[in-house]
């Protein structure tokens, strides 16, 4: 800038603006590619049947108990209960047999029903205390609703709760439930590592995909011993049902209502 010859301090502005236009033109496909990766991985996961935390449905506003039962109070004061999505993903397709009739009084952690895959059983206990109002009839014919829509059409019982606030205060809800589910999946992987070693000849290709992810419906191909282990160690349910306690050990099977 000597003051004697032509000097333009904005000389490069034209090229800069062209570079900006190029930037925008490249940004759009760049962004699309960046996002497409993520979406594809998710779809892949579903197709291969990999079970991960972000596949789980966790509706807000529903209480989750420690043994993976959910309960939700409607505007008329009646609570619906059922099994949560995580549990259903772990067990896979099951048949449902209810054990309670309307009018019966149940306490928290009393036996409500049994789900089974062939010979393998899982006991379903109640997350709350109260009076049974009704059972969901369509689960007899269409138990797959438990897997497809565990929170709405797949409700198991309607109960009129007697101690709603006290009992749900120990339950998980909303964001806590999401975080809890993630932890439970991890805990389940640890549980499997110990339990399965004992009971199956070749555990790896039944449970884990490459990369250490769980396959969906993990428990369905595993033996009954793992199911029992799952019931006691993982879920921690020791159902309180006075009439049946003695019969458990003798392998008594409840009738299908």
């Amino acid at each position, binding site marked *: 800038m*000597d*003051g*004697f*010859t*032509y*000097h333009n*301090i*904005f000389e490069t*502005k034209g090229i*800069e*603006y062209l*570079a*900006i236009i190029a*930037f*925008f033109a490249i*940004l759009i496909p760049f*962004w699309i590619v960046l996002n497409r990766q993520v*979406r594809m991985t*998710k779809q892949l996961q579903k197709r291969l049947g990999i079970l991960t935390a*972000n*596949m*789980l*449905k*966790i*509706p*807000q506003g529903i209480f989750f108990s420690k043994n993976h039962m959910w309960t939700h109070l409607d505007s008329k004061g009646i609570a619906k209960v059922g099994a949560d999505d995580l549990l259903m993903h772990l067990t896979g397709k099951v048949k449902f047999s209810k054990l309670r009739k309307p009018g019966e009084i149940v306490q928290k952690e009393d036996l409500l029903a049994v789900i089974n895959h062939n010979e393998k059983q899982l006991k379903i206990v109640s997350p709350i205390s109260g009076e049974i109002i009704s059972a969901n009839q369509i689960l007899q014919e269409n138990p797959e609703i438990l897997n497809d829509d565990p929170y709405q059409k797949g409700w198991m019982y309607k109960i009129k709760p007697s101690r709603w606030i006290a009992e749900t205060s120990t339950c998980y809800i909303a964001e806590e439930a*999401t975080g809890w589910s993630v932890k439970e999946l991890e805990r389940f992987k640890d549980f499997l590592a110990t339990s399965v070693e004992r009971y199956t000849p070749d555990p790896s290709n039944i449970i884990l995909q490459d990369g250490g992810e769980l396959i969906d419906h993990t428990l369905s191909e595993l033996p009954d011993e793992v199911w029992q282990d799952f019931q006691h160690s993982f879920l921690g349910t020791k159902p309180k049902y006075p009439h049946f306690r003695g019969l458990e050990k003798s392998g008594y099977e409840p009738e299908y209502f």
Partner: protein
Amino acid sequence: MNFDRRNFFKTVCVAGATLAVGNSFGAVKPDKNTIEFQGVLYDSTRCLGCLACERVCAKAHELPEPKDELKAGVIRKTSEKQRSVINNYVTSKGEVFVKKQCMHCNEPACAAACLTQAMYKTKEGPVVWRGNKCMGCRFCMVSCPFDVPKFEYHSANPKIEKCDMCYDRIKAGKIPACAEACPGDALTFGTRRELIAEARKRIFENPKDYVNEIWGEQVAGGTGWLYLSSAPFNEVGFNTKLQNSSYPELSKGFLYTVPSVFVLLPPLLLGIHEATKNRNHSNDEENE
């Protein structure tokens, strides 16, 4: 006549220039291929107030000849009908005649402001207005620190009038009409380098006649039209509060930031969008 003058300058000025200019500019020598700015030196001590330059200018540019007369202390202005004007200033040193017109700045505010490049700084020095591009936004008028461009407010196809240093004449090898017509040798045409050297020489040789400053050497980053005056410049109608750096530098800060904002803001917004996406959408995403 012109060529003799120029050769005379060249021989004298090389000596003078090396003394005056050489030290401050170091070893910068103009490349033979670089075109240097040309300008005009106006020496108010030589001006007779004859208004020949005004008449010649009007004739050369198809403008009406100015009819009013010079009166001491009465300020006349350039307008859309008059590109150049002489005024008679009453100063502490008596009556001084000063010619006013476009200063042809080195870095003109008007050319930086013009979004169609209708106001254009030519490589040879003169700042010209190219009518086929002008849209009449008058941003040049807002930006010019000397208030030079004048607009035809009463025309359906208005133009901007200002001195263009007779650019077409320069291209044809001639000199500006006013410089040619001036009987008192008040106007000298040459390269800016030569003119500054000549002006310094005149101040050096006749220190009592001149104020020790060349107006236009530094103001607004340096202009192509240079002034020598016997009276202080603020007394002869110049605004001495103007800055010595160029005016386009003032908008440099903003214009230089624009590309950065263009490049940084969209990714930032996309990032915030991704980060807040899951707040409301955690339920929707599993259903996909």
